[in-house]
Structures are given as structure tokens and as C-alpha cells.
């Protein structure tokens, strides 16, 4: 059962991921965004399979919910359709593809070589409470740094979006 779900979710995530990147039918950014949402959802499924329930929820809520909405909002705001009329250049295509494939092969080889022997799957539960405990004890410092980062993001967005002053 678990295995089947893994394969299903994984396959769907990969297919949707592929469609984000290279949809043969549409080069509309909106399509990409929609498939990205789907990818994120399937990934959330995988998270659940891995007993990371809290993160699964976060994935859906924050990523699919907040972030992607932001994307769609911007796409709509800017009304981007132009990419459709541009053709891909072959050297770029080949180069990019080759690099990606080479990286995939390298990673595959590394993974085959380097995965540690399978430990007994512990009863680790990605529940909210242990995660939160960890976050506010050991990881307090990065957490606080991230909060500064969020301030920066806020200030930055405000600055960048201000009407230009002449």
C-alpha cells in the first residue's frame, strides 16, 4: 500500500513537475503555475507518507495556498503571454538539457553510492509538537534570524513596490 502510494505520488509529482517546466501544449505561465501547485500537492502526499504530517500541511497551506496564489496574482497582474511567440534556440536547449541530464546522472550515481544502510524505521512522527519544541529550543537562533529576514522582505517589498518618485 505504502509502496504503491509512493510510486503514484512520485510519478504524479514528476509528471506535473515536467509540465511546469516544459508543457508541450502550452507555454502560458498560468499553466506552469497550476502544475506547480499540483506538484506541491503530490509532494505533500509524499510528506505524509513519510510521516511528516505537519510539513505536509505547511506545504499545502503555505506553498500551494499562499505562495502560488501570489505567483498567479502577479502573472495576472502583468498579463504575461509573450513567451509564446519566442522560439527556443537550439544551442541553449541542448546545453541546458545536457547540463540537467549530466547533473541527474551524477546525482544518481552519488545516491546509489552514498545512501547509508537502511536503519530500522523508527517511530518518528513529524507531529507538530516535537517539531515546535525543537524549533524553539535548539533552532531558536535560526528562527530568530528568519524573523529578521521576514522584516527585510517586508521592507524590501515596500521599497520595491513604491510608486516611483520623480
Amino acid at each position, binding site marked *: 500500500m*505504502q*509502496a504503491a502510494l509512493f510510486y503514484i505520488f*512520485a510519478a504524479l*509529482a*514528476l509528471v506535473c513537475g*515536467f509540465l*511546469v*517546466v516544459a508543457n508541450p501544449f502550452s507555454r502560458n505561465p498560468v499553466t*506552469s*503555475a497550476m502544475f*506547480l501547485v499540483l506538484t506541491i500537492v503530490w*509532494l505533500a502526499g*509524499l*510528506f505524509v507518507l*513519510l*510521516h*511528516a504530517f505537519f*510539513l505536509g500541511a*505547511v506545504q499545502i497551506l*503555505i*506553498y500551494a495556498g499562499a*505562495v502560488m496564489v*501570489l*505567483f498567479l496574482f*502577479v502573472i495576472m*497582474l*502583468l498579463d*504575461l503571454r509573450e*513567451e509564446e511567440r*519566442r522560439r*527556443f534556440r537550439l544551442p541553449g536547449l541542448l*546545453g541546458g*538539457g545536457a*547540463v540537467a541530464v549530466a547533473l*541527474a546522472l551524477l*546525482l544518481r550515481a552519488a*545516491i*546509489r553510492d552514498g*545512501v547509508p544502510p537502511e*536503519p530500522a*524505521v523508527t517511530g*518518528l512522527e*513529524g507531529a507538530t509538537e*516535537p*517539531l515546535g519544541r*525543537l*524549533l524553539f529550543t*535548539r*533552532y531558536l537562533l*535560526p*528562527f530568530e534570524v*528568519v524573523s529578521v*529576514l521576514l522584516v*527585510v*522582505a*517586508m521592507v*524590501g*517589498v515596500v521599497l*520595491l*513596490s513604491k510608486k516611483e518618485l520623480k
Partner: protein
Amino acid sequence: MTPGLEHYLVVSALLFCLGLTGVLLRRNLLVIYMSLELMLNAANLALVAASRFTGKLDGQVMVFFVVTVAAAEVAVGLALIVALYRRRATAHVEDLTTLKL
């Protein structure tokens, strides 16, 4: 066959490479940015899987940070792209070649 860490890592690697492909091939800044999100998600998957198979929660905490940072980054990035579009009326990388050589 029960999927092990290796399986998850392979999926994550493939996703990462897909994201990279998108960054390298798509011309629209927004799509490129989405591809980058895909790459981050691939990393998240690897972290969660590793967390599961090593029995420690650190990986999941890390994912939490990645998601948060990504959100902040997206916010700033999109604001930047919008500002750029307002100024240049384009979101295509090929139009952004004033700075070169």
C-alpha cells in the same frame, strides 16, 4: 518493495534537475522563478525523507526554514519582477541585456 531513502532521493534528484531545466530553458522570469521553487521543493523532499530514515527531526526543521525563507524570497522576488516590469514592460530574460560584456 518498500520504498527506501534511495527512492525518495532519486525522486528528489529528478525534481531538482527538472527545476534546473526550467531555469535554464524558460524565458519568462516568473516561470524561471517557479522552477526555482521546484528545486527548493526537491530539496525539501530529500530533507524530509532523510529525516524519516535517520530518525531525527532536524531535517524537518530545516524544511521549515527553507519554506519560510522561500516565501520571503518569493515576496521580494516578485516585487522586484513587478517593479522591473513596470519600468521595462517585459519579464523576458532576453530583454534584460543592457548589462553585458
